[in-house]
């Protein structure tokens, strides 16, 4: 009976009327009181989305954001009690959100906000000491690197990094000077010390790091890369702490089976 009551309560919270939960209330308790809980839930979810997507909110305004957040929240509730990790579907939601269609880069700005939020809140994991790779010297061809959890690689056809900086700085002149047709950007978002860094990379360097982070065997990635730059770039990535760990595949043909 408790489970049924909790399911009814949840339906009453995300619906516009209390519904079935109204019949479970004691005599004299007006079902409108469910609205107090509904307001608290919606307010809490909107507030958490606002903290995760500050650039999106500044771009569209508080009222529009609140309406968008309510639409998102009622269709996609958090799956866990960690609101700083809530909103992984907002960027895709915005891509399909008809009222936001006039701001074509909004979804990608949300992706950047999400990546920055991830860099802020990702677990503290010590960077991989490349000397540890020598432990796996016998299996060098099977080593796969794991990116640091605070790191995100993002690409957009719009200069979302410039938009992000201008909007958060409330710099209208910089915003007005942005050329949306300037071509795609390739971004690295990571934690440096306690700060979050958003950096633009050239396409080749971005693709190289993307492949390294995708879990492909390290030697194969280096073998496909052109020239000595790959080794230098790899050393830079290690020095910047962009990998957290590595794994050694059991077998070339069973890429999904790994052992540490």
């Amino acid at each position, binding site marked *: *009976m*408790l*489970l049924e*009551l*909790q*399911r009814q*309560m*949840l339906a009453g*919270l995300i619906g516009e009327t209390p519904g079935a939960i109204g019949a*479970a*209330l*004691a*005599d004299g*308790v*007006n079902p*409108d*009181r*469910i609205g*107090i*809980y509904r307001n*608290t*839930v919606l307010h*809490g*979810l909107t507030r*958490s989305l606002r903290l995760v997507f500050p650039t999106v909110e500044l771009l569209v305004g508080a009222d529009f954001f609140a309406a968008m957040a309510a639409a998102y929240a009622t269709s996609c*509730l*958090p*799956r*866990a*009690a*960690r*609101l*700083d*990790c809530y909103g992984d579907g907002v960027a895709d939601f915005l891509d399909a959100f008809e009222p936001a269609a006039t701001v074509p880069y909004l979804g990608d700005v949300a992706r950047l906000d999400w990546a920055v939020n991830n*860099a*802020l*809140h*990702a*677990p*503290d*994991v010590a960077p991989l000491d490349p000397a540890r790779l020598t432990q796996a010297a016998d299996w060098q061809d099977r080593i796969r690197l794991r990116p640091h959890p*605070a790191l995100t690689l993002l690409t957009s056809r719009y200069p979302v990094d410039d938009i992000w900086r201008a909007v958060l700085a409330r710099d209208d002149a910089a915003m007005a000077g942005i050329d949306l047709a300037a071509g795609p950007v390739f971004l690295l978002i990571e*934690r440096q010390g*306690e700060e979050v860094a958003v950096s633009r990379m050239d396409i080749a360097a971005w693709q190289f790091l993307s492949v390294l982070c995708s879990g492909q065997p390290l030697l194969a990635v280096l073998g496909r890369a052109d020239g000595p730059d790959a080794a230098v770039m790899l050393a830079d990535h290690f020095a910047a702490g962009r990998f957290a760990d590595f794994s050694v595949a059991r077998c070339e043909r069973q890429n999904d089976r790994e052992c540490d």
Partner: protein
Amino acid sequence: MIQADRNHGASIPARAGIGLRFQHHQAVLDGQADVPWMEVHTENYMGGGRAIRCLETIRGDVPISLHGVGLSLGSAEGIDPAHLRRIKDVAERIEPGLMSEHIAWSSVAGSYVPDLLPLPMTEEALEVVCRHVDQTQTFLNRRILVENPSTYIRFRYSTISEWEFMVAVARRTGCGILCDVNNIFVSASNHGWDCSQYLAALPPELVEEIHLAGHASRTMPDGTKLRIDDHASAVSDEVWQLYRQALARFGPVPTLIEWDNEVPALETLLGEARHAARLIDDMQERRPKADAA
């Protein structure tokens, strides 16, 4: 049942502390908060990065209590083991003096909602909560405190009073009670209960922490007046009065000022804490005379 170990929380003194919120991190790091202890919401420190490192630094000077808002002890479907693991991870880094959660639920059917939703006061709900308190205390290998809720509705199936429910959870699991005096006032106002009867039902030896906070009053469309536990203002005069009664019954207990919305300047919070501290002092001055009499 986990064995009672009252010393586990010894580092939280029976004095007045404040709820630490992000807005005040820097001021606290700068030494502007002379308080004997602080409490944070565990869920705000589950990631890495700056927030938890700030808290670790503050923890070096001030005892910290971890107050959870997301474990959902009353969920019929069980508590989330991943969330319990995250709570333990924070506890291992912060080494809190006290840990607490709520008599409420927040999760069902794979969804979490950010509110402390009311339980029907039934034997089934009591068994569910006790099972989850046992599970939590076993996993954390320590006692927790459970807080009485503020509620706006009652269910027709309820067969147990809320105060009996609280005491039963503590008796069956060995956990302690976090007596939120504002919640008692809010719920009693909303449901026509007697605050004094509620306090009188709580055995002093079970009450190990008190919460104080502000609430709002609202007139509903049907004309009824409701108190809303919004933690957005100063503690009301009625709640201070009830706090005096609570101190008289429970003795000196670690007392926390909570202010979560429209968070004021740190000095305002500290002023509320000083007021609570004065009431604790007043009670301790009177208490020996009362005992002698």
